């Protein structure tokens, strides 16, 4: 099954700043892999439920108990950029 990927859109969704040449290369490679992967569509799966977890289990809960937090300095020491007690990022264009 031929696959046609809007690679620029996919790269934007994935927050990957790729140039045109890179996009074209990835498009070709992804299409080869996806054409192979698309073979799954040949298998009839009517009425077959999907598997998200290899071992079925339910209700893994924790008690509502407060546990120790990390030391702020240890956390912020890994930040690429900080301002005082905050992580600093460049301006945000859109609301979430």
């Amino acid at each position, binding site marked *: 099954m031929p696959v046609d990927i809007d690679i620029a859109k996919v790269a934007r969704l994935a927050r990957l700043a790729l140039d045109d040449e890179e996009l074209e290369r990835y498009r070709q490679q992804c299409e080869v892999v996806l054409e192979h992967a698309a073979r799954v569509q040949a298998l009839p799966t009517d009425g077959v439920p999907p598997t998200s977890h290899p071992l079925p289990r*339910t209700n893994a809960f924790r008690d509502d108990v*407060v546990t120790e937090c990390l030391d702020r300095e240890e956390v912020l020491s890994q930040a690429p950029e900080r301002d005082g007690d905050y*992580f600093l990022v460049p301006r*945000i264009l*859109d609301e979430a």
Partner: protein
Amino acid sequence: MMAYEPVIGIETHVELTTASKMFCGCPVDFGAPPNTNVCPVCLGLPGALPVVNGTAVEYAMTIGLALNCDIAAHSVFARKNYFYPDMPKNYQISQFDEPLCVDGHLDIDTGDGPVPVGITRVHMEEDTGKSTHIGEGGRIHAATHSLIDFNRAGVPLMEIVSEPDIRSAEQARAFVTELREVVLRLGVSDAKLEEGSMRFDGNISLRPEGTEAFGTKVEIKNMNSIRSLQRALNHEIERQTALLEAGEAVVQETRHWNEETGTTSGMRSKEESFDYRYFPEPDLVPVAVDDEWRERVTARLPELPAQAYGRYLDMGLDGPVAAVISRDVEYGSVFEAAVAAGGTPQMVANWLTGEVTALLRRTESTLAESAINGTALAELSSMVADGTLSASAAKDVLAGVAAGEGTPDEVAASRDLIQVSDSAALEPIVDEVLAANAEAVEKLRAGDGKVVGFLIGQVMRATGGKADPGAVSEIIRSRAG
């Protein structure tokens, strides 16, 4: 000109007041110093894994049950994928196609009878961190950079989605007010709008009155009070009406409410930002609720406003009075305590909705802030009933109680407001008054009943208003007879 009917649905987010976060043990604690309530899980550090807070699931079930929802026997968490700098993993763990609670309703009443508003779903998710925009007055578009605090990231968040059953901004106001009362009554959230622990988005479209098909809907965000929700919806109704009347199309989009200008404006977003690529969260296992668990939670549900309303009517309260007390948690608890302390329900209720409300409005305070409690109110109303206090003295006593001066008894004593109805104490005063007003006494004896009021007034003046007018009247009549 064609008349349009608004079709409104509301999405409400409520932060739960669990001790710890949704998926980790960090405290849920508004106002902690920035980036202190964080751990590998809620910071999205590499390798960290979420574990569901069982109490948060119970709280969510509680909300669902209170909103008459079905509790799903099997529900799952999913990843909602989008990039945002204050969302640590760049996906939000949220329920998607298999939420915990579905298909409920909440009844509202705006004066023309109860209206059921359908609840599509109630699902669990996690909150994000908080960004502060720096530069140009903190407005996002003019900011130079932003500072991020992840304390709120991972706080348990419930999303309550209504059906598009709401037909006016007034109904929307009633819906969120009622919903807030339910949540408060359940004790699962502090639902503080100003702190963002309760927030809502609105979906609104218009259609020609009498038609069924939905128009193009617009989502409105950024309303941080019930009043701004109502204003935003009214503005949007006007804006869409104007468009439709001008023959223009409403664009399906998300619009941002601006509190200062009182208008909405379209938000910049690219089309693919809505492609959330949901898929089942592989780090979490499904939630299974069996009958036993559901019944255990149901049994613990507190009484809800609608149920309290019915019970208050049975106790003999008038509809409007019962409505006020049943819908306000503080009023309800003071009322219940007053009745438990021996107060007559109607009397206590009338005090609450009358004098107490007027006093709170004058002093710009709330019932919780005042020192008024159930015992005090029961005492006060019985002091009026048995004649210990006059109606006007009782208002003064109430003010004293509210200000923390003591119990009604203590306030009445210290302000010297106890009504005198003891005839032994009143007789000498009445006799003095009668002696000083011989002319009036003559008229009375001649059958002119109108002078009784005058004479009572004289006694009241002589007693500084403390005399029981009924008792005084009786003594005067007996002396004249």
